[in-house]
């Protein structure tokens, strides 16, 4: 038994969960969704073990290369989904979120991702790294759930407007409010991890808390988009379609911060 076996088991368990969710999606059997949720929860625990294992084995935080941080992102996504699902019952989001999580796991295990537990370069040896990356990814996981519920909102809303909404389907209004709640959890987490801890760490390592490097700038852009979401909603009363679109753009900005910057733009962060 080792870390990569645990990772594979997690992967397989998430697959099974996705299978049950898709059975639920097509057959509308509530019990399939319930099984799906239990399976994800099991997968999440195995995943947690895998991360702990990795940490002990390598002696540093489990997100210092692309493989590790993708795995951690998938873990955060599963956590965010489980919390939201237990709280608000958004089963319908399950299949789509599982697809995203499996996609991230697949990316993580692709041979393109360097996965050896490489020794850390000096700047990365800091517990601020732990705090910075884990809290940011956790915040982004909630943005991911908001992204899915916002897309579901757009679909539900157009169905309701056309009068073809199905009996008992989750209402657009409820999806809108769940999206808002996810942003309300994600925004403070992202602010704390991405901006505040990021600045503290940058100051400790490079002596400058802000240097407009592309990754920093894109975190700020993501943050601005969600600030826009909050203000249009709270002050100008925007809801529904426009809010959903901003949340979708916000998550895409977060994705770009995460992937695009590493592969398309260069900067101080390019090793992470």
């Amino acid at each position, binding site marked *: 038994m080792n870390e990569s076996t645990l990772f594979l088991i997690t992967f397989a368990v998430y697959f099974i969960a996705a299978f049950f969710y898709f059975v639920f999606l097509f057959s509308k059997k509530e019990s399939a969704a319930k099984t799906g949720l239990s399976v994800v929860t099991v997968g999440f625990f195995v995943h947690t073990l895998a991360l702990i294992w990795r940490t002990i084995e390598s002696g540093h935080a489990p997100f210092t290369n692309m493989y590790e941080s993708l795995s951690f992102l998938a873990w955060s996504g599963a956590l965010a989904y489980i919390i939201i699902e237990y709280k608000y019952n958004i089963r319908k989001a399950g299949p789509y979120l599982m697809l995203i999580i499996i996609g991230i796991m697949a990316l993580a295990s692709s041979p393109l991702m360097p996965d050896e537990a490489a*020794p850390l*370069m*000096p*700047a990365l*040896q*800091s517990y*601020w790294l732990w705090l910075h990356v884990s809290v940011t990814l956790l915040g982004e996981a909630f943005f991911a759930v908001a992204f899915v519920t916002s897309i579901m909102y757009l679909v539900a809303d157009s169905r309701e407007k056309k009068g073809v909404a199905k009996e008992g389907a989750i209402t657009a209004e409820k999806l809108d409010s769940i999206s808002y709640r996810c942003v*309300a*959890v994600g*925004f*403070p987490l992202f*602010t*704390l991890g991405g*901006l*505040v801890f990021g*600045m*503290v760490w940058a*100051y*400790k*390592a*490079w*002596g*400058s*808390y*802000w240097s*407009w490097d*592309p990754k920093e*700038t*894109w975190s*700020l*852009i993501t943050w*601005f*988009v969600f*600030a*826009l979401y909050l*203000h*249009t909603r*709270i*002050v*100008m009363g925007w809801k529904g379609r426009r809010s959903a679109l901003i949340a979708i753009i916000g998550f895409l900005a977060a994705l770009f911060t995460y992937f695009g*910057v590493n592969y398309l*733009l260069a900067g101080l962060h390019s090793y992470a």
Partner: protein
Amino acid sequence: MKSLIRFLSSVKLAIFLIIIITAASMIGTFIPQLRSAEEYGALYGQLSELLIRLEITDLYHSWWFIALLFLFSLNIVICTLTRLAAKFRRAFKPNLEFENQTLLAAKIQDRFSRKGNLEKSEGELKKGLRSAHYKIKETRKEAEVHLLARKKILGIFGSDIVHLGLLVILIGGIISGFSGFRTNINISEGEIVPVLGADFKLQLDKFETEYHPNGSVKDWKSTLTVMEDDNPRLTKTIEVNHPLTYKGYVFYQSSYGWDWQNPTLEIWAIKTSDPSSQKNAFVRLGEKVIWDEENLEFKALQFLPDFIIDGNQPRTRSLNPNNPAVFIEVYRGEDKISSGWIFAKFPDFSQMHSEEEADYKFEFKDIQTSQYSGIQMAKDPGVNYIWVGCTLLMIGLFLAFYWPPRDIRLILMEKEGKTEIISAGRSAKSKLALESEFKRIMVSFRRSQ
């Protein structure tokens, strides 16, 4: 004036500015910053001049970007201030005049009557509300009592504290931009260097590099002593992520290198026809070595750690000792008879231009020099504002999202020995939680007759 203030306090302006600043920030990540005019010319051709003129090539420090940030700060201040008076009133001088109808029209409301006179009901009601952590204000009007029970009032100010935090961060950024500075100092073991603008000096006691088993650098460590008037004040070993801070100056480990100004060179002169006749010398640049047996003198004139020929000129490609080379001259008496470059890594490649048939050759065996520690020195008086601002920001976010204010308004009226009670709950951000709490309080109050 009034319309200016209205303009500067509007949330529409805020949204406009957020969009513009976001878009500008994006552009700055796609167009490489702070390159040379030639590079821009190669990348963008005709457009490059426009980019440079508009300072898009140093976008985040351009006058127009800073002006946008300034306008944004002004927007935050004025917007927050213009709303603050009303918020204070709401928090500390709330209106206790409410009508039955208003309460009954609320979404969360209740109406019932119970036995007992007004004082008794009031006392019990207050007790119930207080045990649910509500704070109560009251007013009396003829035969009516109005109660306003509230909790988490501070939540009202969440957004203002967020905005204040942001403002403090922006101010800190401006201070950093104008009066912060950073420089690199290279310092060798034993050396003492003055610190720019400070009344103390810095001495490097010891410098070492640690390696991972695979040979990559694990860490650099410099033991530094702060010297004030020649007295040591403080000694600390710094490494990456663990700087030394003294009197507002921060010293970071940033790099390392070799001091090529004053290396010791090991040069062997060997007689070609009789290799047992040798002169092994350890010299510094410019020092003459006398080789008695051969009646020769030689000296090293120039040293390059990473020799290449560029054009026709030798120069060094880097400061790493990849291809160390030394230029030597050979004399017999007053006459220079030979000169040329010799290479540590390519002994056979050495070529000397000789005036006479030469029965000797030179080999460049080794170099010894001290390593220096690259230390970045920064003084940033803005940074404390940043941490204060971040703290305010997080407190404000917590209050705005997780400390939602709630209130319950109640009207108590005495009617024929009974008390009639109308109540309504209000919470913009936690309706569901308030609804269940409201029900619980009212139900237990009805039961307690």
